[in-house]
């Protein structure tokens, strides 16, 4: 019996709930992580993943098994589109202080607080990025997708994804430099030029 994602999808299309359960157990955490990184909120991230899987079960024909697209590529697209729609529906981004970032329990209280503040700053900087830049960064950096795979998810060329990644990192540097977490771009260039 085919246990690849695409094989399971064929069975899901025939109404096999067991195959659907296997797919969910195999991928729910992975897509939850993507959703959380895009939304920054645990409850919303879970809602998006649940809605995406229910959509998959209710309308399995949306995935064309014979189109030669990998299930994960297609489902990354579904989840990221749903998360982006939810982001657009929000009036404003939740304050980073209010987000669900847990301090490391092994650290002292002061250190944990400092870490929490740093995490909040990182979150704020990431969520200040334009949607496409944030998605490219999430797919390539956190999900470990290649530029080509991220391009397939985002329906963009490799050059476009590379450009989005570069701009995302430049934007992050600019934002994080304001809070002193990294050196600003200009200073770094001067420093590297000095050592050439």
């Amino acid at each position, binding site marked *: 019996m085919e246990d690849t994602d695409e094989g399971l999808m064929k069975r899901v299309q025939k109404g096999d709930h067991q195959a659907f359960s296997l797919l969910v157990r195999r991928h729910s955490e992975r897509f939850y992580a993507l959703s*959380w990184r895009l939304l920054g909120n645990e409850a919303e991230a879970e809602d998006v993943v*649940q809605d995406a899987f229910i959509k998959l*079960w*209710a309308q399995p*024909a949306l995935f064309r098994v014979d189109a030669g697209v990998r299930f994960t590529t297609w489902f990354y697209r579904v989840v990221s589109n749903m998360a982006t729609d939810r982001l657009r529906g929000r009036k404003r981004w939740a304050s980073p202080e209010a987000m669900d970032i847990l301090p490391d329990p092994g650290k002292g209280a002061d250190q944990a607080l400092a870490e929490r503040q740093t995490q909040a700053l990182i979150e704020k900087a990431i969520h200040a990025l334009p949607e496409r830049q944030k998605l490219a*960064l999430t797919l390539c950096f956190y999900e470990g997708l290649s530029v080509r795979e991220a391009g397939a998810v985002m329906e963009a060329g490799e050059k476009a994804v590379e450009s989005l990644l570069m701009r995302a990192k430049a934007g*992050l*540097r600019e934002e994080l430099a304001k809070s002193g977490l990294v050196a600003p771009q200009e200073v770094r260039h001067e420093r590297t030029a000095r050592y050439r």
Partner: protein
Amino acid sequence: MNEQQDIDDILARRAPVAARPDLAERIIHAAARAPRQPLGLFSPQGFMHEALSCFLIPRPALSLAACLLIGVTGGWMTATSQTVSYDESEMLNLVVINEEGWL
């Protein structure tokens, strides 16, 4: 140190909050209760889905632009073809019967 390394290090510090352990089971149970769209073309919903998908416009802006272009081109060609030349009007005089005075 690589110029991008410090940004990468900072990004790597961003660990996601784990989902609740029963997330997969909740999804599976919720899906079991969700109504399912039949795949068959010959079921009413399946037929409607296929029929509607024939009329879906994947790129509305492009379709609108194409329609405008076709409309303008068609209109321009019709306007030029409606101009009746002298020879054509002579031919029409022969074909069209003057019915004045018959009734």
